[in-house]
């Protein structure tokens, strides 16, 4: 589904990504982790072309992201993305947040879009907040709406960029629960996160990044059981003992 081959990216002479290769197969959940500044957010943003990259190729469902001839808006409409800071549209109600792209991008009818939006809102447990504005919701609720907004587009895969990093601890679980349910339904997911419990529970593989490189790409059990690289061992000992 997502194929990343030898991707490199520089800011000036500083390499943010160097020779990254990874795959996410259909129905697979892959967690990307690593210390801050390791390039994991940049990598996931390259997948839907929000960040350009200078070398290598990324294919999503057979479409080359880096190809200048690719219709990026069309490709992005097929990929859901959830951001660290939710990025709901504050001037629109929850309902309009869910409906806008369905009608304007997919050309869906208004009634159908509202119907779809409400079903997804129900699913993330926020049906009664449909008429509110994002600013009236808690962080955890906003992030659940953001997930519903992405799902409303019927994505072929979902990208999560540190979805729980900006949340207060007591709100993390409600967001992770939604993500776990999604994973169990067979959604293809690429998730940048520090939530190792989530990774253990649903990830097929874990990709560990450091200093712009993919240091380790291993099945989840192997990664947590006996990480091969010293950097991954170091990272895990720090993050798991906190």
């Amino acid at each position, binding site marked *: 589904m997502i194929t990343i081959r030898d991707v490199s990216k520089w800011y000036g002479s500083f390499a943010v990504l160097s020779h990254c290769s990874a795959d996410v197969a259909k129905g697979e959940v892959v967690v990307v982790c690593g210390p801050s500044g390791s390039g994991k957010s940049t990598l996931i943003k390259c997948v839907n072309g*929000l960040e350009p990259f200078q070398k290598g190729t990324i294919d999503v469902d057979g479409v080359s992201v880096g190809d200048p001839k690719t219709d990026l808006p*069309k490709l992005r409409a097929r990929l859901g993305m959830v951001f660290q*800071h939710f*990025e709901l*549209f504050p*001037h629109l109600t929850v309902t309009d947040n869910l409906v806008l*792209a369905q009608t*304007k991008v997919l050309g869906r009818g208004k009634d159908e879009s509202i119907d779809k939006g409400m079903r997804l809102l129900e699913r993330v447990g926020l049906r009664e907040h449909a008429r509110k504005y994002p600013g009236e919701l808690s962080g955890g609720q906003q992030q659940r709406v953001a997930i519903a907004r992405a799902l409303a*587009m019927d994505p072929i895969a979902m990208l999560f960029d540190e979805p729980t990093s900006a949340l207060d601890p007591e709100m993390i679980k409600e967001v992770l629960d939604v993500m776990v349910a999604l994973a169990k339904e067979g959604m293809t997911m690429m998730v940048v996160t520090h939530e190792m419990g989530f990774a253990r529970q649903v990830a097929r593989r874990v990709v560990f990044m450091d200093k712009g490189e993919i240091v380790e790409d291993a099945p989840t059990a192997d990664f947590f059981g006996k990480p091969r690289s010293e950097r991954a061992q170091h990272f895990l000992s720090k993050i798991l003992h906190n």
Partner: protein
Amino acid sequence: MFSNFDFDVIIRSLPYLFYDGMTFTVTLTILATGGGILLGTVLALMRLSGFTPLALFAAAYVNLMRSVPFVLMIFWFYFLVPYIGQWITGAARPIQVGAFVSSLITFTLFEAAYFSEIMRAGIQSIPRGQVAAAQALGMTYPQTMGYIVLPQAFRNMIPILLTQTIILFQDTSLVYVLSITDFLGAASKVAQRDGRLVEMYLFAALVYFAISLAASQGVRLLQQRVAIIR
């Protein structure tokens, strides 16, 4: 000290002052604000487009407009627009557009420079993540701007846009250089006809003051109501 003043002249000339004068002033203010915001938004988008020729053109335009005295612009346009029209259409003689259209064009072009700076600040105040979120949903550039960035930028900037409109309302009195009957022009004509300069100019100042003050109070109230909850 008011004993030899004739305030009755004001009462007598009210219909003329307001039907002829104020109507012109308000019409010009509203149309020039609308046109100025529209053109200003286009200029702001050009300037932020990242496409150098467009950005340079918009920057040059704004800087030129802001460094020429407004009265000069009004004067200049009144005498120049007919010739530009002739040149564009290839007509045999200069195309007379009339004082109203001429001043409307001038005010729109001039105010657009100020409105574009306001809209530029407004657009830049929208977090980059909002653009990323819109793009991630598959929106194109026009959709991102039209549905996400501009509505928020506009709402954030409404108080400043309206304050600029109040300044424009006062500035419309500059059309007196074209001998147009705006509110001040009407007051001025009565003043000179009846020899009641002090009364008429006092009254005109009072009216401008009252309307501007009421409008700025209105802006303040509005400011609290349109604010986006974050």
